């Protein structure tokens, strides 16, 4: 429901990721983080939910 609300508010669903990772699954955690980082980096920067500290 959180993802749906964010999407409803105009946030790109591809920037959101939900995974179930056990504390014992370190390698899965690393893999997931790498995968998401690459995916989001490819999407480029966004101004949504990003605070502009130069103001």
């Amino acid at each position, binding site marked *: *429901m*959180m*993802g*749906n*609300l*964010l*999407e*409803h*508010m*105009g*946030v*790109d669903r591809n920037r959101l*990721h*939900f*995974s*179930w990772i056990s504390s014992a699954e370190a390698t899965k955690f690393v893999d997931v983080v790498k995968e998401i980082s690459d995916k989001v980096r490819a999407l480029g920067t966004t101004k*949504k*939910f*990003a*605070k*502009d500290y130069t*103001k």
Partner: protein
Amino acid sequence: MDTCIEKIKAICTDLFSKGEVEKVIGFAGGSIPMATRPIAVTSEADVEKLVFNAFCGLNLANYVTKNNLPKDGAKIAVVAKGCDARNLVTHMVENQVPRDQVYIIGVPCTGMADKRRIAQRFEDEITQCTQDGDTFTVTSALQQEVIAKKDVLRHNCQYCTHRNPPVYDVMAGEPVEEQILDQPFPDVDHIASMDPETRWDHFAELTKNCIRCYACRNACPLCYCPTCFVDESSPQWVGKGQDETDITTFHFLRAFHCAGRCTDCGACVEACPMGINVRDFTRKLNKDALDLFGWEAGMDLDRRPPLDVYSPDDPDDFIK
């Protein structure tokens, strides 16, 4: 609804004379036209102060919390519209108040009037408003108008499907007919039909006048945390100024804290001094709760809320 108040008063007088309740939480007349205020009546002599009309838009469940229940286990009575009663049920389901300490005086409700919609029809300040059944006679220095209630109903009341309290101890009137809607969430569907950028702009435009007064949070019966996340300073979850990112974060998180709990009572919008329809956030969650879990908050004392329990049938296609 006119005769309701007489019944409410009779019930309250009876409760006090039998010594069944310590106080009654209800509505009293306001100091300006089209306004009411919550009141705690503690004696039979003050029962006359109670009113009930189409401007009782706040949610009285907000005044029934763990900390203001009598410590000796005595009962308090609450005048409850459909939505107030559903929020009382939510309090009980969330173990905030015990069922046996609350006496629910159920009021069959035909909806509340939107005072902003009435004010829009006037160029100057409204000086008087009287209600006669389903019509209002509204007077200002320049004009006088007779307005039908159905034309100025609040948005959440237009789409209300639970006008009668689902749980009550006594009803102050015959139950009213419930609405059956083909499209219960046209506003949510409308936003969903926009492209993502337009949706983002819609919410930015919606909240741009927010002054972070937290009236929406304070009017909401769901917001009973001793310290709200916006007031925390260690860690500080969200900036306190009027930066648009902080405003969006506040509204998004406030809404999400109401997921599967909101009864769409409209108290948040009623309380907002800037006229922001913050229900645009919570309505999406209400729609999802209904679509994904067949859930409407506050209908049943024995069913656990969907975000409170695990079921193997829970939708999980978002977990990758």
